[in-house]
């Protein structure tokens, strides 16, 4: 089964995306395999609303481990299976909390091995900030890294918020030639194109 890694800075909406995308594909509950940086792992079952409540939210670094969900995408012949993995938010600088540093190391480790990379950015935040701070330096690094790997796309999230359209324009100008899908993880907008993308990759 192919693995698809969702990666990006903290609070861009990675976790909400994974949960809502699972719901979009017809699941009413999800089994989340949680792998901690120390190698320990466990499986937890959530209803979708419960998952949204417990796993997402503002406040830095809600996610501190890898959280994988198995998805099935209807295809011409039967169904395609896919593992989608949510990760700890990345940042540019050295974090003072060792637990978070470990979680980021864990994220980069799976990044080296994953089949498909979904890179999420917050289009609304892009507009809010100055052009110089458009994307984190880490985002540019992810873009460069992904060029050498398999399928890759950028999700421009939070398109429902004011200013996100302008943010998207800035993003497209800043990263010419990249495959960008505008979405709203909250309202499940743009998910059809994401589904088409992942089903091509698995």
């Amino acid at each position, binding site marked *: 089964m192919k693995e698809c890694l969702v990666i990006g800075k903290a609070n861009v909406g990675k976790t909400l995306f994974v949960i809502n995308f699972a719901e979009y594909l017809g699941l009413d509950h999800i089994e989340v395999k949680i792998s901690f940086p120390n190698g320990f792992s466990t499986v937890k079952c959530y209803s979708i609303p419960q998952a949204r409540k417990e796993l997402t939210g503002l406040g830095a670094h809600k996610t501190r481990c890898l959280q994988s969900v198995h998805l099935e995408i209807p295809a011409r012949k039967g169904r395609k299976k896919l593992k989608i993995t949510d990760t700890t938010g990345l940042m540019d600088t*050295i974090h003072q909390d060792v637990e978070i540093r470990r979680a980021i*190391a864990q994220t980069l480790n799976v990044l*080296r091995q994953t089949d498909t990379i979904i890179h999420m950015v917050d289009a609304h935040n892009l507009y809010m900030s100055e052009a110089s701070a458009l994307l984190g330096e*880490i985002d540019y690094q992810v873009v460069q890294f992904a060029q050498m790997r398999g399928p890759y796309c950028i999700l421009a999230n939070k398109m429902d918020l004011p200013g996100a359209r302008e943010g998207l324009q800035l993003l497209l100008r800043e990263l010419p030639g990249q495959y960008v899908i505008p979405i709203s993880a909250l309202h499940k907008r743009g998910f059809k194109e994401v589904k088409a993308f992942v089903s*091509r990759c698995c």
Partner: protein
Amino acid sequence: MVIHKGSTTKISFSASKVTYLLEKGEISPVEALDILRRQEEELIFRGEEKSKLLLEQSLEELDALVGLEPVKTLVRELQAFVQVQQLRRLEGLLTEPLVLHMVFMGNPGTGKTTVARILGKILCEMGVLRKGHLVEVERADLVGEYIGHTAQKTREQVKRAFGGILFIDEAYSLARGGERDFGKESIDCLVKAMEDHKDNLILILAGYEGEMRQFLRTNPGLHSRFPIHITFPNYNLEELLEIAELMLRQREYQLDIEASREVAKILKCNIGTVVENPGNARLVRNIIEQAIRRQAVRIVKEENTGRDQLMTITLADIQGGEK
């Protein structure tokens, strides 16, 4: 885009060292990912260089074959097609399924096996086949004598060919004997193997053009499973002479003028008259190998045989039979 040209961080670290430093808080995520990326680039570069070189060698080997222009063009098209499909997959674009089972049509001695062998190498270097070796079989290797024997024999050959090419010479002979013949069972078994091992096996059916076309017509299921058809043309006189020259050069022999005229004459006659086997490189090889043996008999009795004499084939060596 941030460019890290002058970056001073070492890339000689192992990946685990990088994550260790990251955990320790000695490098930032940006620096860590930068190192990991450059390591990856190194690896890809080295791997690419090596397989590119091998691929080029195989394509050169193909080009070095005498004649066969339409075949070369097709193989190159095939190579480009496979490469583009791979690039499209990397971009997440829709890809055509790579069905590379083929039919090679042509007379014996027109280069079918040679091309299949090179093709195996090319596809291996492109990452389509894991091993790219060629397993050459014919009816007797596939068809058994009693019920169940055929499936077992066929499966065995298929297994040998995993990761490479199963080349079935005179494939139409599998349809010989009609419905109750075990050849039919072998065909069914091959078709099943093709489905089960899609990514790991390429089948090539080879044989005379007329017989192959008839075979495909009477087994319509096969037609769609073997989408690539390559026709191997007969060699013309010029090409046959070139082949003769090449064979001699490889063996470190040469023809004197009279001998070379005689070879041309023999080939010319055969192209016109030998209906079942015109334009056949095997004829060339037979002529040359016989001539080499006759030359040996002739000069072994002579004294003072110099380098020139040891190398030269004369008219007398050629004459006295070419069949």
